[in-house]
């Protein structure tokens, strides 16, 4: 099958990528259906699969339209899409509404009482496009952080708007996408470390020796890499300030203020509840064993012990009902998706296409690792969904738009003469 000629030459469909995405979506839909099969009043979960199915077809339709466009058209759309996203995120701060467990967050766009969607999901795609456009336009390898101001601004504005909602989880996805794309664009790794250093210092600040060791490593890096002196000094001072001030400020706060700050940064879950959720998630996954309790038969899910079982913790249902076999299949599909997307990025027709492909793949990767890691308490509970699985229309739409963009890039990419060849 060939796609219509738009780029002037025949293009083939990247079947492995499409097939992987379809399998993931099918599995995801099946799990959303199972999530509604409970012994207690299921509430919103009961009919979730029907709505998710509708969204799936909407997403497929939109994806089809995108595959009929071209990489150039996608590049052209980057600016308007980015601008729209930023405006929507800004509007949300005033008119946004919360939902479910995240009632205090302003992540939902609501018109006349009807929740339309979560603009931050589409913003992820838009930011990837915009970053790619900006990075592709840059000449030469950057040697200093200042040279990265443009891409950093591109990701910084929506990041700040999202942190104001506040939604730490989604914010971290933006950071992940940004670092992934900078790496793919060829930014030297010492610069990436320097860029990350204030954040690392903030995390390490609460253990003096760990922070000390980290700071020595950072200093060694600065002396070896020799960035612009002013940048190096400023960075060192910034790291010291964070390392010294953060614990002082933290200690000055009483335990209620600390908790309030934590809840502010991560309002979806209060600590007690989060602990309960993770425990129940691990019981569900562990009790699933090698072969699982059987599709729709998970007791933790059926009896309501597993919270958020059709959204954030849907992978615990996979673990409980389909067992280690089901988990392995899902993880393999995700790995296949990532590897295939990397291949698409590697073979992109130009730098923009390659960066977009890699950025979208990075977004998925962060989602998958954080979400699945969370179900086993390997990652903090930040409440970000699992692509193709978690119930949620905007996210499914965004994921399939990403698939479509990747398919288009793949179709126009180099080395397509060998068709399906790997």
């Amino acid at each position, binding site marked *: 099958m060939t796609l219509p000629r738009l780029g002037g030459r025949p293009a083939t469909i990247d079947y492995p990528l499409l097939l992987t995405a379809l399998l993931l979506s099918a599995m995801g839909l099946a799990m959303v259906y199972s999530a509604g099969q409970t012994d207690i009043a299921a509430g919103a979960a009961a009919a979730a699969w029907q709505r998710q199915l509708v969204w799936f077809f909407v997403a497929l339709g939109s994806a089809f339209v995108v595959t009929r466009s071209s990489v150039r058209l996608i590049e052209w759309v980057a600016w308007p899409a980015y601008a729209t996203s930023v405006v929507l995120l800004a509007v949300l701060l005033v008119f946004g509404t919360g939902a479910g467990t995240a009632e205090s967050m302003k992540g939902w766009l609501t018109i006349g009482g009807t929740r339309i969607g979560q603009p931050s999901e589409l913003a992820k795609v838009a930011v990837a496009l915009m970053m790619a456009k900006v990075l592709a336009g840059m000449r030469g390898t950057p040697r200093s952080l200042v040279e990265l101001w443009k891409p950093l601004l591109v990701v910084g504005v929506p990041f700040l708007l999202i942190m104001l909602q506040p939604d730490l989880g989604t914010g971290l996805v933006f950071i992940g996408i940004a670092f992934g794309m900078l790496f793919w*664009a060829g930014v030297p790794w010492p610069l990436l470390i320097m860029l990350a250093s204030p954040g690392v210092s903030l995390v390490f600040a609460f253990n003096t020796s760990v922070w000390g060791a980290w700071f020595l490593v950072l200093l060694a890096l600065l002396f070896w890499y020799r960035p612009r002196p002013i940048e190096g000094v400023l960075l060192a001072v910034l790291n010291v300030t964070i390392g010294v001030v953060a614990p002082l400020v933290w200690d000055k706060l009483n335990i209620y203020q600390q908790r309030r700050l934590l809840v502010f940064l991560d309002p979806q879950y209060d600590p007690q509840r989060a602990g309960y959720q993770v425990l129940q998630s691990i019981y569900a996954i*562990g009790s699933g064993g090698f072969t699982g309790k059987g599709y729709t038969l998970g007791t933790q899910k059926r009896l309501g012990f597993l919270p958020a079982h059709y959204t954030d913790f849907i992978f615990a249902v996979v673990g409980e009902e389909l067992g280690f076999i089901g988990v392995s299949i899902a993880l393999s599909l995700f790995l296949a998706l990532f590897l295939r997307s990397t291949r698409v990025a590697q073979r992109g027709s130009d*730098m923009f296409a390659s960066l977009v492909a890699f950025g979208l793949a990075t977004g998925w990767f962060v989602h998958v690792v954080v979400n699945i890691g969370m179900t086993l308490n390997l990652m903090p509970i930040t409440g970000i969904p699992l692509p193709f699985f978690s119930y949620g229309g905007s996210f499914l739409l965004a994921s399939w738009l990403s698939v479509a963009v990747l398919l288009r890039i793949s179709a126009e990419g180099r080395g397509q003469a060998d068709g399906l060849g790997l």
Partner: protein
Amino acid sequence: MSFHPNEVARRARAVRAILTLVIVGLGLAFFRVQVLRSSQYALQADGNRMREVPLVAPRGIIYDRNGEIIAENLPGYTVSLLSPTADSLASALDALSKLVPIDERHRSLVMRRYERARNQPAVIFNDAPFEIVSALEEHRVQFPELIIQNSPKRYYPDGEAVAAVMGYIGEISELELTLPKFEGYKPGQLIGKAGLERQYEAQLHGREGSRFVEVDARGRVVRDQGVRPDIQPEAPAPITSTLDLELQRFIHERYKDSLLGAVVAIDPKTGGVLALYSGPTYDINRFTGSMPPSYFNQLNTDPRKPLYNKATQGAYPPASTWKLATAIMAMEMGIADIDTYMERPCTGGYMFGNRFFRCWKHEGHGNVNMRQAIATSCDTYFYQLGLKIGLSNLVAGGIRMGFGSRSGIDYPQETMPRFPSADITRYYNEKYGARNWTNAVTLNLSIGQGENSQTAINMARFYTALATDGTAPRPHLIQQDVPRERLFSIRPEQLAALREAMADVVSSRGTAGSAAVQGITIAGKTGTAQNAGPDHAWFVGFAPYEDPKIVVAVFVEFGLHGYTAARIATKVMEQYLKTTLVNASATTNAQ
């Protein structure tokens, strides 16, 4: 930006490596949780959803010596609530109280049961009447946390006749739960609280079973069938009592309204208790399950003390029934024999020092020998005999015959008799103060008064030795082999002579002539225990005189005179010898 294909390929390699490592790492983490530690988490997940509902085990059946059922189990219903929190239990009780009677006291009891075992259903009705069960079944849908299940209920076909001997069962208390004896018991279980039910708790208690129900995260029952196979409760092996239910019933039927006291009957050959009755009695069947508190209060405050087993827990001066002990000691010491006369005849009393000790017969018995003194219960004779024996010998002999210790019957809380200790000087000094007492205590002791209180069961044991060869086994209620112990040693012809004297008692020559029974020679001794109020009556004896098959001790509170007790005792003997024993042998022969 450097975007040379070679560099991109290098980065792509690094990316592939990282992706694969991370995903494989996640896979390993899942392998650890789902394969290596699965069983542990499966347990946790099951613990989340499974609630164990105890299945009450039937208590052991108790048969009488002829295989008749004394205690069995009937089908009953237990109603309980499985609640996730105290608040939800409280509101469920509120709702339930609109349908069935649950008062404030009952409510707090249920709440206490819940606090003791939160994961178990809190029992509301241990033995719900059918009306309550059907009322609740009708509204079943409204109460998903309600559990109604069959549970065996203790039943005594002759509840009132065997009340004192059986005791009763009740819910285990918090204190009892801490005792090593009740290790493995759970809150809410029923245990023997008194009587044989308590004594043989270990043998009568079955092994509790379990039923599993599935609850949701809010603690509501979702499924109560087939969640996991039930563990069936196990009933223990039945035990066989030495009691003769027919005799027990006879005593009850005849004396339920009149008797204030105790009747004990023992098979002198084995020491097995044939009957043990305490009056007034009560209905132990009302003690099972949900006993109305008013009933217990009524029994508990009744001045006639129905809850008190007068046969084993009531100790009273044995009075003249004890004179046989004095006589035996005199024989053992060679001081007197059956035809020995005392120095002074009975003139209605005996002058000791400057104090006159009365005989019960004001006009006096005249000059009597031992045989006549026993038959007519002459106090004057025994005052002199006691003085000859001496206080220390009298006390030592009494202790040897078991008057200083319990009979040892397999029944809880037997009262310790009151009797002087072997070190008499110290005993009486402590009691009256040094030099504040005289040899007058000897006179009182020799006629069974003074520092001497005995239970009916202990007196029956002593007369078992009299009815046989001076030996007696420990009396017992559950069939077992018990060795005989020697209480005294006199020559067989001396024992025979004493028995003849005792046969005189229940004849026109004796104090209980009015109690004689046609066709059976009965031997025994009356006693009239002095009391601040009306005197108590005693009779202890055996029949038939020629070859004793039953020893009976009867004690009647405020019975005034020994023959009151004797009339009951001889009727019991007659019933046993003429009817029960005949019926039993007929049954045995038929088999």
